[in-house]
């Protein structure tokens, strides 16, 4: 098990945002957390990354209990997140943003930059442009490329499709598949449940800080409760991407 969260509770002041959440991510998987606005998805990812302290529960990553470990140390263990809203450093160039991804390793080797630029050729064209002036889709690509620069064992992604045109979302999800195929485990948070479930191996459905359903992503995709609440229309079988 690469990531194992048990009975996690997280509070904002007196408000309990996560109410005893358990989940696992196995090496090589793509796991999705779906749920509507305010369900606690972002809080979960922030707690995994160490931006928030849980009030109870434990987080074990790669065999090590990291519940109390400082956030920046978790990156060294192989956890890296592309946060909600992308978190691009607006006053840094695309290149500098990518270099920030490799901060823990000092100056990144050219091969790493080449990899990011080959995954996202758009970034190569804009390498000298300030991060704050990129389009939403480009910023998302930069956020993912930057997170990869840390060589994570587990890549955390918080709503990479947020605010993006469907065509860009399709592109980004295809690249996530490619990243996973080359050996990076992914924990994905999405409101865009349909695309996310089609990409993932397994999924957890969150409601008000609790897991209310979990299982193979394929099963959740055809679960009536999920379909009604999160998918709108049922996907047609021919729309499904090949997840083999």
């Amino acid at each position, binding site marked *: 098990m690469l990531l194992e969260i048990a009975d996690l509770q997280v509070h904002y002041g007196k408000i309990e945002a996560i109410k005893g959440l358990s989940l696992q991510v196995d090496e090589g998987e793509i796991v999705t957390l779906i749920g509507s606005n305010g369900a606690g998805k972002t809080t979960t990812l922030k707690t995994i990354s160490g931006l928030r302290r849980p009030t109870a529960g434990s987080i074990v990553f790669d065999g090590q209990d990291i519940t109390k470990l400082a*956030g920046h140390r978790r990156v060294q263990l192989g956890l890296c997140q592309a946060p909600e809203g992308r978190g691009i*450093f607006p006053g*840094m160039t695309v290149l500098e943003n990518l270099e920030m991804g490799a901060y*823990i390793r*000092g100056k990144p080797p050219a091969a790493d930059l080449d990899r990011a630029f080959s995954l996202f050729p758009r970034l190569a064209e804009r390498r000298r442009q300030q991060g704050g002036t990129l389009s939403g889709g480009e910023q998302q690509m930069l956020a993912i490329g*930057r997170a990869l620069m*840390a060589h994570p064992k587990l890549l955390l992604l918080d709503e990479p499709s947020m605010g993006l045109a469907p065509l860009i979302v399709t592109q980004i999800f295809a690249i996530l598949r490619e990243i996973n195929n080359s050996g990076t485990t992914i924990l994905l948070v999405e409101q865009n449940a349909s695309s996310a479930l089609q990409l993932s191996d397994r999924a957890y459905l969150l409601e008000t800080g609790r897991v209310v359903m979990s299982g193979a992503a394929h099963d959740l995709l055809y679960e009536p409760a999920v379909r009604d609440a999160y998918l709108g229309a049922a996907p047609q079988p021919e729309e499904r991407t090949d997840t083999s």
Partner: protein
Amino acid sequence: MHAFVTQFWPSTIDGLTIGSIYGLIALGYTLVYGVLRLINFAHSEVFMVGTFASLFTLHGLGITHAETGFALVGVLILMGLAGMAGSGITAVVLERVAYRPLRKRGSSRLAALISAIGASFFLQEVFALRYGRDLLSFPPLMNKTVLFHIGSGQVRADKVLVVVAALVMALALDRFVNGSRLGRGVRATAQDPDTAVLMGVNIDRIVMITFLVGGMMAGVAAMLYGNYFELTQYNVGFLLGIKAFTAAVLGGIGNIRGALLGGLTLGLIENYGGSVFGAQWKDVIAFTVLVLVLMVRPTGLLGEKLTRARA
């Protein structure tokens, strides 16, 4: 207006000299504000400690008359190092004792501000009780040689030293912030602290380095001030600190190049103004500038560059 014309070159030279000192101190305000969004009101005392450290170095070396040549250079370097150490260490301790505990508890910015003012009084009183409340004079270290004239203005060696040293330090700081890995960590923390953590940046370490570097800049300013004015006092930082803060706001608080530009601009404005209205009006002019900038253009001349992310 006639005085403005006749005094133009002397005012310019004096304005650039004092402006360089404002600029160096302003760098500390701007760096800390950029990273923590905190006005470190005790930064004026960080500077004050640097002047005492410089003075004690001269006492320790037994300097009683002006030096020349290599001896002068050596003493100036030692004085600068002592100023940087005194101010840098003070700034780091200040952060640990007065700010970090509040930051860890998620206290409001107002709490940090009050803590800053408390720390400022504390340091002033400690130095007043230990070294008295009177002006302390520096032994004359450097001959005030006139190197050349520009119009009616005399370009003196000690003034040239101030301006050149300030420019060199500001350039070095710019290189550090924009060219080094740690500097990139400083910028990342200023622009988006949460994302910086996600990239593996140790925020506590960056904050410490920010205070250290800002303190060291104030330490260099302290050495230059001591060498130029040959005086210090427990409250020497008070007026200078507010002026430097004005310079930081004028240049665009959070903006490193702006701090130096703001310092030089403020120095020139108050000296040109002083030549017209009389030197006793300099402080009034400086604070009028502060009020006007805050009213008309609160982002300053160059804007909040370091911190653009969190306006």
